[in-house]
């Protein structure tokens, strides 16, 4: 009986097949869903074969173009970091009250009882890790800007990005081991981050349920080894720090062995030069280690390691829940953008939207890092500016791309203009900018001051505190659908309305654009299928 039932399901019965054979959007979507598993497997197998981890398929290009030698250099630096790390493990003590001292002993090698070349080994480990991040970042950008993730090389980009993220996490777990102030506070911020997973707004479907499952607290406890930072955290981080690098390296070595790749596409001289540069930096700029961790005092200003600085600045400008979602979401957004780039063109001038996404990323990274190092932050002024610029970058890219497509297809302007894409950007850019400008939850205090003075002048019976409380009640909050009644009567719901326009407009343009795109796609497929049928069964003359 069961066998019959399963065979009935597996045999794709007639009523299911009829759904597949049906034409139009629904039929095609159903077809896609029906074949999703095998298609995904095929897709992965094809990409897996073409995956390029260390530019091993660019050996010839690497001889003349240093951009293609990045993979080889990256691998070499990784080897240096691993080897120096193994040597450091001999002296490092992963216990809270000895960690800092053991590093000090490794570093200050001119003192009595010192460890010869300890400072150099540590310097190679530290600066090697920095070079690792730099080279990995440059390589990700190279793949992005040259469009080499196209034509079946998507997995190359995805894996490069994942290794960069793992490398950053490895760096974070690594600098806690020093047990200095920067490490302690960075770890605190990092471990407090997942707690926002338990604070989903209840209007999200299933939000309350996710909150009740304590996934954020569970994550934080798995990271920290308890409910606070302590000895268990250090041993855990030590283990993760070592494990991530080493397991990945084994994985790569296995791949190199299986496919008999050339491991590094750089010459021995290049390896020697890279090693010398790191060595020279180590000697002239000894690796710093700050002051011992003190959970009672947060120094002001406090900075994270350089590759987290931009993210750290972003946290200042955002509602924390949104900031958490964004931080996790940025790599996901990059991956989505990757799959939106469907055209085969790789040349610089022929894919301007995606170039501008990359350029925007570079600009935010550099400018945000500069701002936080110099402690420049005007919470009220900055957020709208950044939202505005983000939309602007996309729009510039869009119009350049539009001009290109018009020329390529020899088309009229309205034939290639994507009103939904432009509408999407314009609505989100302007509404988000204005929302952050007028209805922002930050700096409401400064904004409300003149209003409060006005209110006090009109009604002398009010105390300052009462006036303040009335204003506070009318303050727009980050609540999507409920404009406070008091705000409407006070005639100041501007922030809320803008936020609603933003969300509704955004979703509307997205849904409309998707529906129209799908209809076009289905029609194209039907025409192609008809063409195949017409070819297979030529009509008999006279029939």
């Amino acid at each position, binding site marked *: 009986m069961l066998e019959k039932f399963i065979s009935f399901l597996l045999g794709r019965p007639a009523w299911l097949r009829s759904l597949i054979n049906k034409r139009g959007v629904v039929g095609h979507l159903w077809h896609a869903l029906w074949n999703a598993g095998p298609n995904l497997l095929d897709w992965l197998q094809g990409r897996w074969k073409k995956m390029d981890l260390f530019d091993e398929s660019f050996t010839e290009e690497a001889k003349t173009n240093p951009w293609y030698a990045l993979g080889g250099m990256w691998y070499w630096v990784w080897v240096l970091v691993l080897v120096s790390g193994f040597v450091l493990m001999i002296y490092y003590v992963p216990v809270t009250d000895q960690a800092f001292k053991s590093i000090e002993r490794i570093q200050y090698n001119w003192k009595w009882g010192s460890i010869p070349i300890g400072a150099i080994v540590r310097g190679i480990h530290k600066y090697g890790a920095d070079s690792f991040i730099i080279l990995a970042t440059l390589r990700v950008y190279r793949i992005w800007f040259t469009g080499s993730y196209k034509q079946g090389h998507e997995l190359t980009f995805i894996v490069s990005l994942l290794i960069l993220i793992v490398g950053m996490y490895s760096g974070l777990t690594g600098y806690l081991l020093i047990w200095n102030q920067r490490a302690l506070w960075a770890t605190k*911020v990092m471990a*407090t981050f997942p707690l926002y997973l338990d604070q989903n707004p209840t209007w999200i479907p299933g939000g309350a349920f996710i909150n009740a*499952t304590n996934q954020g607290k569970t994550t934080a406890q798995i990271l920290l080894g308890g*409910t606070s930072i302590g000895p268990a955290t250090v041993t855990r981080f030590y283990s993760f720090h070592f494990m991530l690098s080493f397991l990945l390296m084994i994985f790569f070595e296995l791949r190199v062995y299986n496919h008999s790749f050339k491991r590094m596409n750089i010459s021995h001289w290049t390896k020697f030069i890279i090693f010398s540069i790191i060595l020279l930096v180590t000697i002239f700029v000894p690796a710093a280690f700050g002051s011992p961790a003190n959970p009672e005092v947060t120094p002001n200003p406090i900075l994270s390691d350089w590759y987290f600085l931009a993210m750290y600045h972003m946290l200042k400008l955002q509602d924390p829940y949104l900031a958490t979602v964004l931080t996790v979401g940025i790599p996901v957004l990059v991956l989505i953008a990757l799959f939106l780039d469907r055209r085969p063109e790789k040349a610089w001038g022929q894919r301007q939207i995606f170039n501008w996404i990359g350029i925007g990323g570079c600009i935010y990274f550099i400018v945000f890092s500069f701002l936080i190092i110099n402690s420049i932050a005007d919470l009220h002024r900055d957020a709208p500016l950044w939202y505005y610029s983000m939309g602007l970058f996309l729009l510039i890219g869009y119009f350049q791309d539009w001009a290109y497509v018009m020329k390529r297809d020899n088309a009229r302007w309205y034939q290639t203009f994507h009103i939904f894409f432009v509408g999407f950007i314009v609505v989100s850019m302007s509404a988000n900018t204005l929302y952050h400008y007028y209805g922002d939850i930050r700096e409401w205090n400064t904004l409300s001051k003149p209003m409060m003075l006005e209110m006090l002048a009109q009604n002398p019976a009010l105390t300052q505190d009462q006036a303040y409380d009335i204003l506070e009640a009318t303050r727009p909050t980050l609540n999507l659908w409920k404009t406070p009644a008091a705000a409407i009567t006070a005639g100041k719901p501007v922030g809320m309305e803008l936020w609603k326009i933003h969300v509704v407009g955004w979703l509307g343009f997205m849904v409309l654009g998707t529906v129209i795109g799908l209809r076009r796609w289905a029609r194209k497929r039907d025409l192609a299928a008809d063409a195949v049928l017409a070819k297979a069964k030529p009509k008999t003359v006279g029939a």
Partner: protein
Amino acid sequence: MEDNTRRMLLKTLTTLPIIGASVLAMHALLRYFRPTLAGGVKALMAPPDEVASAPQVAATLNDLTKPWDFKEFIYVRTSVEYSANKTQGAKIPGFVVRLPDAVPGVDPKNPKTWFVVVQRICPHLGCTFNFIPNREELSGGYNFAAPDPFHPYFACPCHLSVYDPTRAQKISGTVKGVSFDELPGKVVSGPAPRPPRTMSFDIVDSKILITETEGGGIG
């Protein structure tokens, strides 16, 4: 497809127990990383285990005689730790601030209303915030222009959240079963989502005795 039905069935029948076994193995692995007291599948969704801590003295009334006198203190909370010791004393820094009598809610006859006692762990992302008694530092270092008349604020150096100790913000929660619906330290600037975490206290023999702390922060 129809020819392969028997093979597919056998494959399905062997795959199901393998999937089940891997789920169980993953569950055990997660329990390895997070050995909570709650057992079974509940362990995947259980809140953190808690350990009771002894009451500790934060300050004496003689320390805080004038308005806006404040004292930093460390409350050592026993927290769960997945190490050989099982627990560790996590240092929770705190502030006791004496409020002026003019602040609403301060009753000159009831010493318990004179003080604001908060954990210094910023509810935003866990840094330790400071007590800022002057206007210039607040506007220069923390990007906050305080309204007149000036009084001190709490402000966090990491992401520039500023809290007003004289005003309460509505938020519901519990400290060891005793529920509250508002807390002092309203957020007036910066990205913080809520006022600082609270501590329950008693005044015994002119000493301010911290009895329990609100959970949730990373110590």
